[in-house]
């Protein structure tokens, strides 16, 4: 009788090991080389909710092309949300098995780099991809901490711009300073219409505004493992951003509950003059909306609030460096095949057809050049070249969350029609502490 628990434990252990073993053996176990017959590459990408059918067709097309080229099959897996993605990456990192190639958002690349689970590209590897020169230089800005240590291969570019209603603005040109934008927003607010459509409850948008206004005023937020979220420039950024709704009243009060999609919908209904912080993907929604044909894109202001020019130590960033990077897992047993697939995905032809199908800008220099002449894209391409990378730091996700948290916790006081400076300062101080703590833990 006493043996039973032991027996049970042994059974459990063997079952557990067997289960693990099964998983491992179902992975690709073969030598390197480009004769990929019988091999399968697994690729994890974000599910495209705007073009689901086109995405499925694209999966098949890539699989067919790659099979013809190397004999290997490509199996795409999709994740639905950033959290879903994170969970999958964590599982793979922890277990050392999973997809061979991942498509990651640019701001998540530093965290992925910090895990050390992804292939650092050596000169040889870049050569296999056609060389670094094959890519638009700016897009490489968030591939790694420096030129020698890069994990991310730029795949798509999604710079942020602002949309404006050409019917409301008439002959007015969109402002190039945040103060100017506020003046215009005030001018166009009234008659049930608001100057700006801003998504205060979005999980990402708010920190992008704060980051942009901060770097323009010369505060990079993170430098040499030091956080500077409590810098006056950043406080001013918060006051400006929150003030739009609370004191300037150029934003619909309901915007405290909006996510990005709701702001786009509001602008699409013709109820706002400007829609800052959107990418080219908003085009799909807007072209089907009431403002179809009555809107245009412009780059966002690059002059920080309260100033007349970008600070001398500031960066005239129009947008964060946004888009997707491809990373190859270190544990992959098919490194060369994986690089060959990345080369295919970043080739001029593929990048061009990807843009035509999904509206995401190419990172391939040749493909990008071809699009430069398209007037509808002028502002977006302009923004792509003026975008700046967020700090390449393994703790950036935490800093980002701390920046966002200030906005989340400030929202209740906005209804009172003022920005509570004392409360804002204490929230910013908390954020600074959280960010610095995260940076101190960096290894």
């Amino acid at each position, binding site marked *: 009788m006493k043996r039973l628990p032991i027996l*049970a434990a042994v*059974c459990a252990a063997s079952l557990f090991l067997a289960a693990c073993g099964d998983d491992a053996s179902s992975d690709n176990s073969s030598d390197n080389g480009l004769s990929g017959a019988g091999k399968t590459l697994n690729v994890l990408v974000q599910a495209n909710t705007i073009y689901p059918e086109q995405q499925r067709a694209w999966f098949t097309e890539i699989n067919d092309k790659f099979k013809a080229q190397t004999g290997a099959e490509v199996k795409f897996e999709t994740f639905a949300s950033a959290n879903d993605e994170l*969970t999958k990456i964590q599982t793979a990192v*922890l277990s050392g098995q999973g997809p061979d190639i991942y498509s990651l958002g640019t701001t998540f690349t530093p965290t992925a780099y910090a895990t050390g689970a992804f292939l650092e590209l050596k000169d040889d590897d870049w050569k296999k991809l056609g060389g670094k020169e094959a890519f638009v230089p700016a897009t490489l800005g968030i591939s790694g901490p420096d030129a020698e240590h890069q994990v991310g291969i730029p795949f798509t570019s999604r710079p942020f711009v602002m949309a404006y209603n050409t019917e409301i603005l008439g002959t007015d040109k969109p402002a190039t300073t945040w103060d100017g934008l506020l003046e215009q927003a005030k001018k166009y607010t009234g008659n049930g219409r608001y100057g700006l459509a801003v998504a205060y*409850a979005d999980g990402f948008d708010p920190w992008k505004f704060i980051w942009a206004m901060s770097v323009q005023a010369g505060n990079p937020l993170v430098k040499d493992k030091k956080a500077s979220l409590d810098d006056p420039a950043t406080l001013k950024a918060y006051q400006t951003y929150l003030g739009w709704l609370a004191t300037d009243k150029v934003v*619909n009060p309901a915007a405290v509950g909006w996510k990005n999609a709701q702001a786009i919908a509001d602008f699409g209904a013709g109820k706002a003059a400007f829609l800052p912080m959107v990418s080219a993907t908003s085009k799909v929604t807007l072209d089907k909306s009431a403002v179809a044909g009555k809107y245009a894109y412009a780059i966002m202001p690059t002059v920080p609030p309260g100033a007349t020019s970008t600070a001398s130590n500031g960066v005239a960033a129009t947008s964060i460096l946004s888009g997707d990077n491809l990373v190859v897992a270190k544990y992959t047993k098919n490194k060369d095949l994986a690089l060959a697939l990345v080369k295919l995905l970043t080739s001029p032809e593929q990048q061009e057809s990807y843009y035509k199908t999904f509206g995401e800008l190419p990172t391939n220099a040749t493909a990008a050049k071809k699009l430069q002449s398209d007037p509808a894209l002028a502002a977006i391409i302009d923004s792509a070249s003026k975008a700046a990378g967020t700090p390449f730091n393994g703790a950036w996700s935490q800093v980002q*969350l701390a920046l966002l948290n200030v906005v989340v916790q400030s929202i209740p006081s906005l209804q009172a029609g003022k920005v509570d400076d004392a409360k804002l300062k204490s929230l910013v101080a908390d954020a600074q502490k959280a960010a610095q703590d995260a940076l101190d833990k960096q290894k």
Partner: protein
Amino acid sequence: MSITTEVRPATSRPATRKRRTVSRRQRPLWMLAPGGVLMVVVILVPLAVALLVSLLDLDQYTLREWTGAPFIGLDNYVEALTDTPLPHAIWISVGYSVLVTVATLPIGLAAALATQQRFRGRALVRSAFLIPYVLPAFVVGTVWRTILQPSGPVNAILGEQHLWLNGPLSYWALVVVQLWTSWPLVYLLALSGLQGIDGEVHEAAALDGAAWFAKLRYVIFPYLRGVLGLGLVISFLHNLNNFTLPYVLFGVPAPHDVEVLPVLTYVESFQNFRFGLSAAMAVLSLLLVSIPLALYLRAVRLNSDES
């Protein structure tokens, strides 16, 4: 069963005991092995790993070689209790869970009593009562999020601009939505309890001329005590552990007033990558949920001893 006890002579007791020991020895315990293995793999192994992780400084930098992460003893627990919003989160979580649990009791009971008697369309009403319970939490969260938007139906009906999804009112929004989705559990259990009451009991109460309230108070309630106790414990644990609803309703980072324990644990793990700290929080919340559970099990055991 009562007959055998009466008939059994006092002298036969040692013999019975002996036979029982024999049969206990011969019980085919090995047949428990499949279930036992499953328990070990599904519950004990992850629990042990969680305990281990809670003692490690595991983050995005050490994740890949997680067994090599620095062992820091109870530092994660100390940090969780002194340097994070955990105490506040426990206060919020327990507070709202108690409120919701207490409020589900009268509602669930009333609904069960109302549908106890036969009437036309009873089946339809009974099914309708279950809708909030069978809807996935994600759907409930999304629907209520829309309802509670600043420009949503609730504010339109009230004719006032209230902020429901952030600020002090968000706490009450969470209470109301959680109540809406969890009362049918108490209703279901109360209904099953009511159906378990023998018809003769009702008859006897009627013969004794008991008024409806006296009947409810002295006849029906005692029968329901066990099943309602179970309902309240399960309901409390559900509320305390509910992640999806607050996550979908309020998003992350959660507004201060609704920063509940599961969401905080999630944020530490999946947004801040502090896996060790998050595991320590999870272990602390396990301790927290084991309190009502222990109380309940104790109560059940006392009951069975009495009988």
